């Protein structure tokens, strides 16, 4: 309990307080500035840009990641021989860390000796400079982030699929519904609780946990193209030592998480009803 208070509640409180101050270099002088840190942020085009980058990355990583994972899980959930082996081979990437994902994809996409560019030059005669181009850099960050989280998402989707109530599916089968129809009108709605849970965890993932991928591959560049909010916060706080501004940025993220948490609480309450019915 003491640890809780010291390492949890105090930092949260302290973050609130710091966000209202301007701290001089090395923390020698603290000046109360009210909400100036916040208003500066909202007037700073770089920060707005960072917000937009985060939204684009998050949306693509979440929707792309969940879509691919669901498709893979449905495929692997069929009654075929070796289903257990396939399951295992599909969820082991859960053990991969974001930093490893960053290192490996950096190598795969390196302009000089990367395998991706070699294949592209063979097939399309192009050798894009992945890390030098703002658009392409965002693209490979997204690809690496989706890949890293596949194991996690597939693990949850497979567990949910195996727990599905098969009566409804059989009824639909007897009614002669096609594969496609069965999936969209029976399986998909039944999966909605787990999809919602994964939606929240994946948003948190794209907000915070892909930091190492960005740090290893692009360092927020080129031209801030991949400067997601958490990376911006890190740079302000630990490279430029603008503690007040960094604390204000933490708070903005904090409120984002609060909203997400509230949504999660409300819907997980509804989920119980849903399953009990």
């Amino acid at each position: 309990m003491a640890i809780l208070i010291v390492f949890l509640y105090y930092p949260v409180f302290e973050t609130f307080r710091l966000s209202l101050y301007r701290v001089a270099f090395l923390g020698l002088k603290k000046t109360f500035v009210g909400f100036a840190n916040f208003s500066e942020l909202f007037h700073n085009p770089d920060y707005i840009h960072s917000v937009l980058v985060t939204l684009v990355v998050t949306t693509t990583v979440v929707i792309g990641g969940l879509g691919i994972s669901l498709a893979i899980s449905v495929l692997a959930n069929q009654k075929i021989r070796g289903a257990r082996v396939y399951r295992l081979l599909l969820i082991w990437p859960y053990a991969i860390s974001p930093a490893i994902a960053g290192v490996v994809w950096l190598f795969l996409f390196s302009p000089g000796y990367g395998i991706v560019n070699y294949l592209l030059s063979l097939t399309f005669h192009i050798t894009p400079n992945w890390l030098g181009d703002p658009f392409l850099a965002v693209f490979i960050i997204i690809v690496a982030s989706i890949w890293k989280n596949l194991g996690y998402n597939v693990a949850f989707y497979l567990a949910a699929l195996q727990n599905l109530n098969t009566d409804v599916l059989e009824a639909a089968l007897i009614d002669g519904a096609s594969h496609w129809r069965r999936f969209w009108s029976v399986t998909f709605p039944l999966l909605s609780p787990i999809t919602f849970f994964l939606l929240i965890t994946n948003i948190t993932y794209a907000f915070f946990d892909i930091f190492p991928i960005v740090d290893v591959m692009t360092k927020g560049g080129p031209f801030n193209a991949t400067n997601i909010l958490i990376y911006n916060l890190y740079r302000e706080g630990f490279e430029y030592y603008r503690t007040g501004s960094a604390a204000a940025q933490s708070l903005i993220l904090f409120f984002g998480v609060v909203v997400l948490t509230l949504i999660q609480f409300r819907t997980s309450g509804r989920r119980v009803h849903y399953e009990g019915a």
Partner: protein
Amino acid sequence: MRRKPLKTLFTHLLLISIVFIVASPMLVAFFKSTQDRSQVFSYPPVLGFGSVEAMVNNYSRAWAQYHIGIYMKNSLIVSVAVTVAKTLLSMLAGLAIVYFDFPLKAPIFYFILFTLMMPTEIMIIALFNLVSDLGLGNTYAALIFPFMASATGVFLFRQHFSSIPPDLADAARVDGAGPLRFLWSVLLPLSWNVIGAFALIQFIYMWNQYLWPLVIIRETSRQVIQVGLKSTMTAMEATDWGLVMAAVILAMIPPLIVFALLQEQFTRGFVLAREK
């Protein structure tokens, strides 16, 4: 139902190619870790096993010269400590919430849960000041304490415990067993799947920590593996990728071992959690 062999074959082929595509980056990493410099940088790229000598050379240099051994030892200490402490604390908290009545139970539960859900990254600035002021910079304590409490754990164990029939608790009370004894001899045997699943998630979560160690640890002797990985990559073109990939493969081994040991509980623990 009539089997359609062609369709089954197609499913197999599709699954095999998906497994292969998903695993291919790590396969490339492994092959590169066994090649010497000329093979690593050859163009067109060479895939496939290099040589045993090159492999030994890459791995031993990563381990000793680039301190991967030290980083892994540090990560192991921190991850095991946090996993054990977190599991115990979450179980006790879950137990308290389900089996004891105290005033304001529900509000306290939701308050704890709510604050615990905040990712550590959010309060990193204040946490950094606090830990530095306490003089804990560059220590294991700095890496362990901020991660000891877990909302997921409390929530998971509360859910699991409340699915266990309360008759058991009454029976234990009649037999004169105290709460800890009840936990040890009744709840524990019924909870291995949940414990296993939770421990796996926490171990991998801690093993993968990056941002916090990056800012709070300044000494090689205390740094963790994920941040250490970055230090094997020097300036872009001069990076010795064979060695870097050897470090990557080494860093994958402990989480994969834990995964292999606990994957059964991992999948079953989820099933349980969702059956409730």
